[in-house]
């Protein structure tokens, strides 16, 4: 169904596969293997823990409309997505999407029928699945192209002529994935660590289970932790000069009895001023290019917001947890829900989330 040609898609094949095979059991290699660069039964145990980047470039607004199919872009920015992380897909080919679409549709029907004691013929044509590539949504050449999954269906007792409508959609993406990690994977693997979905839970389950069975990968829920939420607050505020953020709204929960929920909304200009005051070299940063943001500045910004709140209400927000951050550019919830409202900042958001997803990789 997708008009896009499938010829230009690429699954990154990186030549620089790290040498960590141990073909023969020699003392030498075994010593190495024992150490973890390679083991016969596995690779790279995380002897050194990966951490979230402590510094990142300021989100440069990008006009994605030039690079990305506007239809796809509209789909991405409209909705709120439930996030998961995915381990690398084994033998996933961007050129096989059409065949995958058919298989997934058949799989959904089969799963549906398991619930029924009988064969229902209507089910067979009730689902239409399309997998397509969202071209242009990559930042480095190690990133694999984003894949969009859409499921269309008719309600069970609908009239014959009723049109199918989109009931579920999801995507798999990798934006600015850590090159060391991506390059360390053998070429059979495609790393699309971030999975977003929208629609009925049972369809999400079925789609995940099909991916698991077909590409031998695993899914796990991706919560957005405290630090990442703080990053979002800072990154979005930082964009205020380019696109108006309307407000900076944060939702805190305080462990009191009864539990206390606090919505803390900051005027965009005030937030912007505060942010500029905590920025090191705030004046130099105007030069745009060299603008990188440090975690220190981010925590400083949040600390300032908290102390401001304390001055007014005598309540220290440090005791609570940040649950949600939202601006006109988007919203992020600790439960792993994300909404990107402005297409110009999609890349920055997805970069941060890709990083979070890669951190959850078991090895």
């Amino acid at each position, binding site marked *: 169904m997708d008009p896009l040609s499938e010829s230009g898609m690429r699954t990154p094949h990186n030549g620089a596969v790290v040498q960590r095979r141990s073909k023969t059991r*020699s003392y030498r290699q075994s*010593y190495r293997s024992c150490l973890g660069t390679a083991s016969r039964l596995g*690779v790279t145990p*995380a002897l050194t823990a990966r951490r979230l980047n402590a510094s990142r470039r300021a989100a440069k607004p990008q006009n994605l409309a030039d690079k990305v199919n506007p239809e796809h872009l509209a789909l991405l920015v409209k909705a709120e997505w439930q996030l998961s992380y995915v*381990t690398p897909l084994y033998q996933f080919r961007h050129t096989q999407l059409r*065949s995958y679409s058919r298989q997934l549709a058949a799989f959904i029907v089969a799963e549906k029928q398991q619930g029924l004691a009988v064969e229902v013929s209507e089910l067979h044509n009730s689902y239409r699945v399309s997998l397509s590539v969202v071209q242009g949504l990559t930042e480095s050449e190690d990133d694999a192209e984003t894949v969009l999954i859409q499921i269309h269906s008719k309600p069970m007792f609908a009239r014959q002529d009723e049109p199918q409508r989109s009931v579920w959609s999801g995507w798999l993406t990798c934006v600015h994935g850590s090159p060391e990690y991506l390059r360390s994977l053998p070429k059979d693997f495609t790393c699309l660590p971030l999975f977003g979905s929208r629609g009925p839970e049972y369809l999400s389950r079925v789609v995940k289970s099909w991916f698991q*069975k077909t590409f031998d990968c695993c899914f796990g829920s991706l919560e957005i932790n405290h630090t990442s939420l703080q990053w979002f607050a800072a990154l979005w505020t930082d964009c205020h000069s380019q696109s108006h953020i309307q407000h900076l709204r944060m939702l805190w929960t305080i462990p009191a009895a009864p539990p206390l929920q606090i919505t803390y909304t900051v005027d965009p200009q005030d937030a912007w001023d505060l942010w500029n005051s905590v920025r090191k070299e705030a004046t130099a940063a105007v030069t745009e290019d060299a603008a990188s943001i440090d975690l220190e500045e981010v925590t400083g910004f949040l600390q300032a917001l908290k102390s401001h709140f304390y001055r007014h209400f005598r309540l220290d927000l440090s005791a609570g947890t940040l649950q949600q951050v939202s601006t006109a550019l988007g919203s992020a919830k600790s439960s792993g829900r994300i909404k990107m409202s402005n297409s110009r900042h999609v890349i920055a958001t997805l970069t941060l989330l890709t990083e979070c997803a890669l951190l959850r990789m078991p*090895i």
Partner: protein
Amino acid sequence: MAETLCLSDSDRSSSSDQSVPSRSNNRSLRIAEKERKKNEAEDSFVLALRYFSEGSSPCVRVLKCLIPASVVPQQAVVRAVVWLNVSKIPISTQVLFIKWVLTVFDLIDAKDQLRAIYGFIFSFITEENLCPYICHLLYLLTRKENVHLYRVRKLLELQSKLGRQPFLMHLLSLYKVFCPELVTLSIPSRIRSGFKNYISPWKSALVAVQKSNGQQVSSSISAAFTIKEKSISRKRKHCHLDLPALSSVLNKEPQSEQTSRRKMVPLVHLSSFAQMLKDMHRIELPAQMGSLLGSSLALQYLDCVQEESALLRLNFWLGCALHEEFLFCRQTSEEALQFLNNLLSAQHFLQEGFSSSDAFLYKFLNVWDGSLLRPQILGLLSNIPVIPSTQIGRLLFEPLTQLFFTSSMFFKCGLMECLNNMLLKWLTWHSVYALEDDLDISLNSHTSINITLSGFKDSVMELVHFVGRLASLGLQLEGCNTLLLSFILDFYETVCDTFLKFGLPLVVMPPPGVFYPALLATDPVSVDRLAYIMHRYKLNLTSAKSQEKQTEPQQAFHISRHTFRQFNHYLVFMVNCLWNCRMFHANTDMHVREELLHKSNVPQYWTRFDFIHHPAFTGYAVDFHQKCWPGKKDVDVNSIKQSKPWSWYLEYLFNQGFDGLKDFVHSSISRQVTAGDKLQDSQQR
């Protein structure tokens, strides 16, 4: 009753034909197997269900315990349904029975006869209490030919009486799917949730029984691959803990010319080790590598597979399951236990850990409370491969130290055992590979993280010193608990033999905090084991010494003077204490002031820890005394000290099974030469 049971053969075969369209041989084998089980099971089920005809309270209790191990014979269910009609049975029991049928529905071996009495079952629908459950049962049994206008009418009539009940709606919606022309009623496109009529404790008991049964089957050698029955509960909470089913790959890659000429054999199709050997070169890996963990045959294959991708896939799956289920949310369920036990037995089988489980453990140790799934976690921990000495502190020692000092004595013992196993595995691994290649490995350095022999030695040394620290403090904290001491001595039995048993030129002595508590222990077993350990140390050191003299100086492994000194020191003290009655002799590291010893009013305090007075041996001394001089009324154990009785007494002790003492005495004490001279000799080295 008899009529309902009498089904024509044609009816039966036709319906079974429908349910088995065209499956592989596996399926028919399975059916044959079921047939056999069925016959065994049937009698007992029928017997149990016969209680229905009585309908008394034991009936309920019997029913509640009726958890099928494999399948439920259809015959039994049909008969019981028929007995339902006998009005003697209280309605609550009837409900319970239908709930039972719903719970075990998937395990009923065939449904044809049940379908044949569809109308009979339908007649119960008018019974108000039974109605929801009967509807559910009918929902599971309904076929197109069962949908009739009079049944639809009956349901609609009930609906007008009872209101729009979900169970009626569900059944009606199914009827509508089959015969839209009969059901004109509009049904909302999404009816809220399905039937929820089974009882969850039953369900979980059922799952547990079925699972343990499955375990038994897969552990037997003949059935290497068990075809997984579709699990009854569709929606599992702990989805990560289920091993994926072995299935072959769907998307066959267009292979290169070479490989496509070979016909690949999916691992699923192999049923014996011999077959696997035959097809070794053309085995196709399953779609999900995690499935390999469930079968020993597959593990055998995995052991030979050197394909990086395959191992990586397995590790991704395993790591993800471990992280999701144990790190991000704590698990204590039966399933979690089963999962870890499976993993452990797989690792045991392969004699190697999986790197994803190592990576998981390094993180998990920081959040572990030390009691959650302790045996399993410690088991996994003992499989951890050698960690470079620069990392070992952060990854292992820091979290373990915290756990050790904040946990119970039993945890301390468990950890000691675990660390002993870990050391054993490291050393075994070294001895295997050191034999294969020559020892000149320090030259190899093409990756920065390469471990050399000296690096390996460093790691082992770190581990041994770490355990030494834990053991000293642990013994203090637990008041030299005998059990803990025993686990610690286990560890040192491994340590003292590193050179002779494992060929690693490294000897590390136990710290004073372990040596003295063991020597002065009140139980003879500890003292005996310490003697054995000292004896082995001596053999290792002498052997290392002689080898050191032979080898080239630059290659030589050097055992530090300090180790020899420490050993001699311990040996002198031990001999002085047990043999020479010179316990508080000068230049030992037990400095007790003379005045203090006098103040204690212990007579002849220097003899208090010889073989006769040592608290661990006094009992033996008294016993020996009585045996030696049966007539004597007053026991004077000092009389054993005389030359003759002394050697008899030693003989007597050795006969009690104190082989460690025997070895120690024979190797370290020469009775002609005085012990002191002998030790001078060893000190000169």
